[in-house]
């Protein structure tokens, strides 16, 4: 019974994956003009990002996942 249930769940998962493969892009290229506006960028200035990242990196324990790279320092 348990094996049957596991197989059924596996088949449903496989069906979900196959369904995922059939998803078509739903925002056409000609509909993306607004996304190119500067106000739609998560960040705009790499130097400013780097400085801001550095300010927090040397004062907070958390770091990473911000997409900004930088060298280490001993400036706590």
């Amino acid at each position, binding site marked *: 019974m348990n094996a049957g249930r596991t197989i059924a769940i596996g088949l449903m998962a496989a069906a*979900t994956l196959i369904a995922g493969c059939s998803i078509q*892009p739903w925002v056409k290229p000609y509909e993306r003009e607004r996304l190119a506006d500067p106000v739609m960028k998560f960040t*705009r200035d790499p130097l400013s990002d780097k400085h801001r990242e550095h*300010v927090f990196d040397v004062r*907070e324990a958390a770091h990473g996942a911000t*997409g900004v*790279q930088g060298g*280490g320092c*001993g400036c706590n």
Partner: protein
Amino acid sequence: MAQRCLRALAAGGDRPACAGGARLAGLLGGVLAAANAKGAELPEDRADALFHLYDGGGVTALGPAVLIRKSLFDQVSLTGSYFVDMVSNASIDVVTTASPYHETRKEAGFGLDYAYHDGLISLAGTHSKEPDYTADSVSVDVTQDVFSGMTTVSLGYTRGWDTVGKHGSPRFSAPANHWQYRLGVTQILTPRWLMSLNLESVSDDGYLQSPYRVARVFGAAVPEHDPSTRTGHAAMLRVIGDIGSRTSVRALYRYFWDTWDIRAHTVEAGYSRHFGDRWLADAYFRYYTQDHALFYSDNFKIEETYMSRNRQLGTFWDAGPGVKTSYSVGRFASRFDIKVDAGYQWLRFKYSDFTDIRTGKLYSFNASVLELQVSATY
């Protein structure tokens, strides 16, 4: 246009991010097959000159920074950067255990981006030097547009090598090594909304403490001793949306956890809009909070193997609003689009388990961050 939309994010120093999981794997399986054959676009050519200032908690750090990016042969883009931090340090750690000091940190960076079909391969390196600390790093990132440009997937790796020194002890030299692994996805949700999910793991090994800082045991100062290994993980979700009139709103949340038992949350919300053809303004608010590390104490009751009174590892929060304005000056020499930016952020830091031993009260301070920048795109 799709690639321009998403590639522009990468050009801004943002690595589109992503998550794993079977559903995503299925989605990507399909979209990889559906990806079109257009070429990827390189980040925009630009030159930036920045003056930056941080002032708070007895520390003033200021200096210039420059960045130049230039593409070659339509497929390669080179970047060079130089960042200077002139630090006057009279922080509470310094004034209660040593004498205020001045020093300069200089960081040089280079980068190479190579566009190949719908992908972008980026190599980068940095070298940072200050009198008692040097840090070198190299990184590689691969970004790929899929799903007809609606999704951008990225993978990245950075290796870092630091050497810790000590003023007055020329023989003191200790290594610290770092490994960073990144995974991300940026997804167009609708014609007006974008989201990204970034995951990053960082492993550190070596001398991860400060040769100057002390811990307290029954009020007596003893050298701090941190573990020599640490692994941290961060997951960040960002959403940005156009709400009309060339105006956008955005929000992010990041959760961080590590093997030192630190748990941290970062939340930020922002608003951006154009005023006329030349002005662009941003306003945002950022909040951060964290719990202390396992081996952190304001004043240990018994002597332990690992002991730290580094307030960066303590329990605290910081928060504050920020504003930024950009003014497009216009085109010069028929080629250079000039832009001037000014940004300011106010911050409040408040500690829950770090005492100012001069007053006996819990420590807190305010800080200001200022940035002035001139940019040219060409």
